[in-house]
């Protein structure tokens, strides 16, 4: 194995660690919204690191992997936002520890 491939494996492992944190976050967070947060951030970085690792191991795939990473950076947060919005519109309650909900206060004028 050459140095680049070893670096690639290390980056991929880091990505997997972040994905594991996402899983733990999904399990531990108190409500839908905080779970979506845990899921979005860690899966985005975790998957990007996995793709970077793959690009280091197989440099020929670099351009296509970059394209996948770009798609991911656009679509991943977008889908999370739509999920959160749908949850809020459906009246999914937030955890009792929540301090404020400006969206619930303005819901009528938004409709």
């Amino acid at each position: 194995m050459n140095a680049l491939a070893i670096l690639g494996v290390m980056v991929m492992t880091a990505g997997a660690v972040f994905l594991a944190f996402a899983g733990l976050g999904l399990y531990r967070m108190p409500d839908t919204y905080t779970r979506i947060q845990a899921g979005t951030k860690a899966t985005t970085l975790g998957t990007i690191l996995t793709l970077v690792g793959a690009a280091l191991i197989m440099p020929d795939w670099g351009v296509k992997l970059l394209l996948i990473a770009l798609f991911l950076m656009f679509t991943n947060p977008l889908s999370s936002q739509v999920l959160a919005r749908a949850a809020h519109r459906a009246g999914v309650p937030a955890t009792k520890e929540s301090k404020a909900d400006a969206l619930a206060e303005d819901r009528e004028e938004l409709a």
Partner: protein
Amino acid sequence: MSDTFAPVKIFSVTLLFWILLNGALEVDVLLVGAVVAGAITFLLAGSLSFLSGYRLTWESARATLGYLGYFLRELLKANLSLARVVMDPALPVEPAIVKVRTRLKNPVARLLLANSITLTPGTLTVEMKGEWLYVHWVFAKTTDPNVATAEIVADFEKFLEKMYD
């Protein structure tokens, strides 16, 4: 949009996308790409205006690089702070949905802003309406819209304002 360069921008973006998909800079690939990108630009320029809002200036290019650097740094910070929170037995979260304001008008700039907020530490865009964004914040330090705007939106807005009309 009265931008005379709009068709050039749409053509360039679609052609670049084609080249990236092919991953090859050969004459036949470029020729087919140029014909298809030209046809798309000619037929669909009106409905693809979201591809042409990007400013073609040095200032905008510098802002784009600054934005990317800042964004990647924030994404890393977001993950580290999330890792800290989920590993902490006490699970220190203080969530709230706060209102923040944006000056951005361009739809792509607004999309990038909402996405960037979602990927930065502790914040998730839930709803967008006019100049208001509703942001779910895991570590809500404040519920005051002005303070929250300075904290969440201001840094990204500074870059995006220079990138889009």
